[in-house]
């Protein structure tokens, strides 16, 4: 059974590119356009991994990450933060909140796909 990936980003075109890349890699994909949607979808869709953009209106990526980690049902869900601000602070914050990894925008598509696979294979 194919692993499930939830893509969370408010930039339409980035979502399109991520969706294409994840489907090509053989994952089942769901999409959320903002933090609220993401929290809703994550409970139903039960993804194995969430590709989570940090800079979003209303509920940002950090908050979403925290909510996921706070939910005992979602303990196994992996999170990769996508951040346009490659600042160490942000990376550190994301990791501290329980993200499994991070990818800095603009990213190399191959590296992104490899990172997703690597995180999903982690135990």
């Amino acid at each position: 059974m194919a692993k499930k990936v939830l893509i969370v980003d408010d930039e339409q075109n980035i979502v399109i590119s991520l969706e294409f890349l994840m489907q090509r890699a053989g994952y089942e994909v769901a999409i959320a356009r903002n933090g609220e949607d993401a929290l809703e979808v994550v409970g139903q869709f039960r993804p194995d991994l969430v590709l989570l953009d940090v800079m979003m209106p209303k509920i940002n990526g950090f908050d979403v990450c925290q909510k996921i980690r706070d939910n005992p049902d979602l303990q196994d869900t992996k999170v990769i933060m996508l951040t346009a601000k490659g600042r160490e602070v942000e990376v550190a914050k994301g990791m501290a909140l329980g993200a499994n990894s991070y990818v800095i925008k603009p990213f190399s598509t191959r590296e992104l796909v490899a990172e997703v696979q690597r995180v999903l294979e982690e135990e």
Partner: protein
Amino acid sequence: MMLQGGIILLFSLAYIGILFAIAYYSDKRSDAGRSVISNPYIYSLSLAVYCTAWTFYGSVGRAASTGIGFLPIYLGPTLMIALWYLVMRKIIRISKYNRITSIADFISSRYGKSSSLAGLVTVIAVVGIIPYISLQLDGVSTSFAVMWQHSELSTTLPTPGTVDILGDTSFYVALLLALFAIIFGTRHLDTTERHEGLVAAIAFESVVKLVAFLVIGAYVSFVLFNGFGDIFGQAAQSPELSKLFTMENAGTYTDWTWLMFLSMMAIMFLPRQFQMTVVENVNENHLDKAIWLLPLYMLLINIFVLPIALGGLLLFPNGAVDADTFVLTIPISQGQEEIAMLAFIGGLSAATGMVIVATVSLSTMVSNELVMPILLHFGPLRLAERRDLGGVLLTIRRGTIIMVLLLGYVYFRLTGNAYTLVSIGLISFAAVAQFAPAIFGGIYWKTGNHLGAMVGLSAGFVVWSYTLFLPSLAESGFLPPSFIESGPFGITLLKPYALFGLSGLDPITHSLFWSMLVNVGGYMILSLVGRQSVIEHSQAAQFVDVFKQTPENDFRLWRSTSSVTVLRSILEQFISPTRVNEALNDYAKKHGLDWSKDDVADAALINYTERLLAGSVGSASARVLLASAVKEEPVSMDEVMYMLDETSKVIAYSRELEIKSKELEQATSELTAANEQLKELDRLKDDFISTVTHELRTPLTSIRAFSEILHDNPDLDAEQRGKFMAIILKETERLTRLINNVLDLSKIESGKMEWHLTAVDLKELIEDALASLEQVIKEGNIELKTDMADQVSLTVADRDRITQVMLNLLSNAIKFCDNEAGWIKVQLKEQDSTLNVAVSDNGPGIKPEHQEIIFEKFRQVGDTLTEKPQGTGLGLPICRQIVTYFGGDLRVESVLGHGATFHFTLPVVSPADDESGVEAGFSTAVFANGKSSNRQGTYGKESINR
């Protein structure tokens, strides 16, 4: 016969009797507490003691030889009095505070209560006034002689000095005047009181002499002659007399200047003037009236001088009669005995007035500043321990009066007829002028010191003696005439009238020049070089700043305490016990003390006692008396210097500190504010950069992702490939737009924007903008409404930038207008030299709280239900910056759910007439980088690129 000797004597004594009555009456009134002299008119009249026998007889004599040459002596005081409001007020205030008793006391008090200086001033005053006294004796005895021998007139007047003393009228006149002065000036055992009776009598005398002179003047002018016109007319026909109408004989410019200067000093510093103006002053405010009454008095008494002089010369041609006696001889020659008698009384009043006041003031000085200090320092007499020193004081004063008058008589005998009345008087004027530097310096210059005053006064006095006093004796044969002609021992450089070869000046001017030179020079140089002692320092400050202080906070120079009993006994040596009691009770009341319980006298009370005592014996003696009685030295110089220094330093420091700390506080708050601003700016910059970075990375992320996808997946179908390529293109455009916007904004904000100014027709510009968007509007199925004025005035702006604003607003309107039945509306109108543009849409509208935020950078507020709004988030901020730059403003009006309207304004600016100005910039247009349009000044070519 009215003019028999007995009758003359009788009249004289009767007149003097009236004076006594007046003096007695006013003293009684004063004792009863209803002073008659506390009145500005009496005060002003008493100041007219300035007009003496010199004025009464001498002015006419002077006018007979020099025409208006008699005037400077009255012009000087008139000028000086104008300054009294400043100068004399200050002197009076100082004197009242320090209980000054004479001019010598004043000077010595200023320079550290110095006995030596007081003594010097006293000597100068006495020696200087002697010629003046002799002048009065001369005037009175001559008038006696004239009256006595009226039938023979002046031709056989006995020459003074030729008759023996016992047969000389002037000797008896001197004795009579001495008696008069003693009775008036030293009647009181209590020396501290003012001479109220004296002042009243002097004021009365001023009235008498004025009335007498006016009567004679009127008689000569209107009875003997037919008015002024007649006298002057007749005189004009005589070549000799007509000279008197010109300045020919009246003296040179230099002479006038010096004479006026002399008399300016005299009206202030003659001992009798100082006595009347300062010491006898009851109320400082009386000065206000005196300032105009005294000049008026002098004007009145001078009106008839020239008519009498000319009348006399016309009546007695060829110098048959001494012009100094015209006032008497004219009425006598006409058989007008009553008028002659009146004139005689007038002259007598003028002379007695001067002599009385002068001798009283001199005797005060001699006793207080010369004799007392010597006696007090003279240990074996143990004077300080004697009771009732007041009696000793009075005896000294009486003796002084007699001595001064006798000296005057001696001088009169010695100089004889060698001088006119006026030149004798001027010698005295020159002497008192020596006080001027020390006094003026004393009240306006804190640096002036004792040594300077001492040296300046001595040097001035020596020069005065050598160049005026001694020669006046020499001319009368007391010294060999060669002393004047070829100098002492034949040394021509030392000729008294041409010292060091300075010739060509008249003796008075010459003497004044040299004496003032050494006096002022010595005073200033030594004051600048030398140091002040402690007392001097504090007195100098007190004198100069007298208007700034109150008597309560004076500096205490007494350290010790004493007993009230001791102080009381000292005071009672000079002042009546009743007065002492009053004064002490007064003090006790003010300070809440009770003498029956408190016997310890602190420094303040000792200070008070010193000032009380100073009123009797002068400040120098008072200090010595108290110092010996309190049995402790006054605070040592070092201590006082230290105290003074410390006090002033502490005050100065604390003031400085206060100022400094305020400055620091201000600087700190400014710094804090600046720092906050910097921090804020820094934060804003960081925010901006990170926001820009984010905004740039977003399109870049898409571009890179799709480029790689296309590159790595050659198997993609054409549709998908086309879709991805379109995304790349769109994101590239977005990136370009963003970069341009960021650059624009930073240029505008840093002032490096290049503005290309041209005349802009806004209507045309809007139509062009609409035309370029025609396709988009049509595709969006949007209705375009326009409401524009047919024609609007030009403005001056950057066409491209305004177009950018317009396009931005239109694009927003198109983007946000209703999806189904969208319309946009453009309005343009002109009002009050302002162009108004409005762009409306029927979109969702903007929440009130977002209406300002949308103009901030990267603060888009869009329909966030599904996705982010298109655009960079910099459009509106840039638009606002552009509009503001051209002197307009951009704002939004919106009701949520009912669309939004963006308004912007631009000022009407007419381009310069010169077409070249359009390219070079507009001479009338300046756009402030603020909200208001400021259109003055010139737009230079270089200022376009800002």
